[in-house]
């Protein structure tokens, strides 16, 4: 739109938007002062500053064990979903075989089926298989949940990739695997990085599946959920701040690697 005079409508729109942005960001901001408050219960504004809630978190073996378990599960789910999802993305983007559309739909289905339905279903199966409480059981279920994101993101990368480059490598004597590994995958590296990040976060933040499958082996979201339900104290605010920091860090790292890939020749 070429012409922009400040009109009254424009000012109202700006003001309304500012309020909505505040509504969106407020809950993320409010945990910061709370996490450094010296008050033992929720008090706002905090009466004094203290690191005690961070000390609580780092000093409590249950919190640390839950965090490490969640990191382990998320790493496994990320690797497995990339390992299975990347070939699937190649298959559904490039294939014309019968059943391809069906496979594409099946891969998107975990995104559509409500989390509670999938969780209860997997819980029923894993209870029979005595997999409740096993970290790899949760990792497997999280892989299913992460798979649609991996296929969508890598699929988009592949659609934007010029297959002639791969054909050129083949013509120059590369094997199919060499061509994919040395030409295609480096070209779609930004997609691979964002897919990995999405898969990791999908698992790391996931509560509903973990709630059913974890048994007594807490994951971080499960521990947070129980804490919020039982005894609200600002330790959870400290955990929230750490989690927000981790996500921001992960996004920054991913952006760096994702972009760097584009600049390599």
């Amino acid at each position, binding site marked *: 739109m070429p012409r922009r005079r400040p009109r009254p409508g424009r000012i109202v729109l700006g003001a309304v938007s500012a309020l909505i942005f505040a509504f969106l960001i407020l809950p993320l901001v409010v*945990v910061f002062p*709370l996490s450094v408050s010296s008050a033992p219960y929720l008090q706002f504004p905090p009466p004094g500053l203290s690191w005690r809630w961070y000390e609580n978190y780092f000093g409590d073996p249950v919190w640390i064990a839950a965090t490490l378990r969640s990191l382990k599960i998320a790493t496994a789910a990320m690797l497995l979903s990339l390992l299975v999802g990347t*070939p699937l993305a190649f298959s559904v983007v490039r294939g014309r075989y019968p059943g391809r559309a069906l496979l594409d739909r099946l891969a998107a289905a975990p995104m559509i089926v409500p989390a*509670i339905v999938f969780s*209860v279903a997997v819980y029923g199966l894993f209870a029979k298989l005595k997999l409740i409480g096993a970290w790899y059981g949760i990792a497997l279920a999280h892989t299913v949940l992460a798979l649609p994101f991996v296929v969508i993101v890598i699929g988009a990368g592949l659609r934007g990739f010029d297959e002639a480059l791969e054909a050129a490598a083949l013509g120059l004597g590369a094997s199919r695997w060499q061509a994919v590994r040395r030409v295609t995958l480096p070209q779609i590296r930004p997609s691979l990085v964002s897919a990995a990040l999405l898969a990791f976060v999908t698992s790391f933040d996931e509560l509903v599946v973990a709630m059913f499958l974890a048994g007594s082996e807490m994951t971080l979201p499960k521990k947070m959920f129980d804490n919020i339900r039982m005894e*609200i104290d600002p330790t959870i605010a400290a955990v*929230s701040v750490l*989690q927000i920091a981790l*996500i921001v860090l992960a996004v920054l790292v991913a952006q760096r690697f994702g972009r760097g890939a584009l600049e390599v020749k």
Partner: protein
Amino acid sequence: MRASSAAALTLLPKIAALRARRERALAALGLPALLLLALLFAFPVLRLLGLSLEGGSLGWYGKALGEGLYLEVFWITFRIAALVTLLALLLGYPLAYFLATTTRFWTTLGFIFVILPLWTSILVRTYAWMVLLGRNGVVNRILLDLGLVREPLPLLYNELGVVIGMVHVLIPYMVLPIYSALKRLDPSLAQAAEGLGAPASRIFLRIVLPLTLDGVFAGAILVFVLSLGFFITPALLGGGRVIMIAVLIEQQVRETLDWSFAGALSAVLLVATVAIYGLAQRARRPGAELAP
């Protein structure tokens, strides 16, 4: 000429064979994922649905859809989902419009504000709402200090709290499709109307809104369907007093160990979800053809 076409003819079966080989290889690449999805997704979900038909009768569905107590849960779920969708639309449309029409700097900054909550754990956000909305929460304290209310308002552990928390989680899903619909809109249409003397309100109602309805529709369907299956927000912000379908299913499995009934409830939720998506896709087809 003849020779080359004869050569081409002998090549044809070779090309076809190569193509078939390529398709087989590509199909094989999908096999690990197919196996994973079949064993860990399709099988357990179908098995759960199968449990609801135990004894070969539809008795569990009769219980789910016939008894007043459970009908109430469905009604509450639909009511909350509808309200959340409406509010997300009322807040999301102006936001998308602002993002689509402002300068690049504000668009980037605005998108950070819209996307950042998406990346943050839903538990962190829900917890933050408890801090904000509680009896001694930030909002009530401010209202009391300003003398606007005499007693703390009941903002938490009721439907209002659940709706606020859900709208916050779901607004980005409304903003993104509406934003892309607004960006597809040809700005010369509005300019032409303006040149012909139409007031801004009329341009919006007669041109902008009708031409971005597909984005509104996509966002609304997405928000509504996601709302139906919500668990964490009602479980925490509802404080056990707002029972939505997902909360009821969890109770059936964890507390009453009633798998058949949980299966029937899951089937109803799943069918509602898939049906709404399916209808939406069918309804959108004719509109899609008209779009540029």
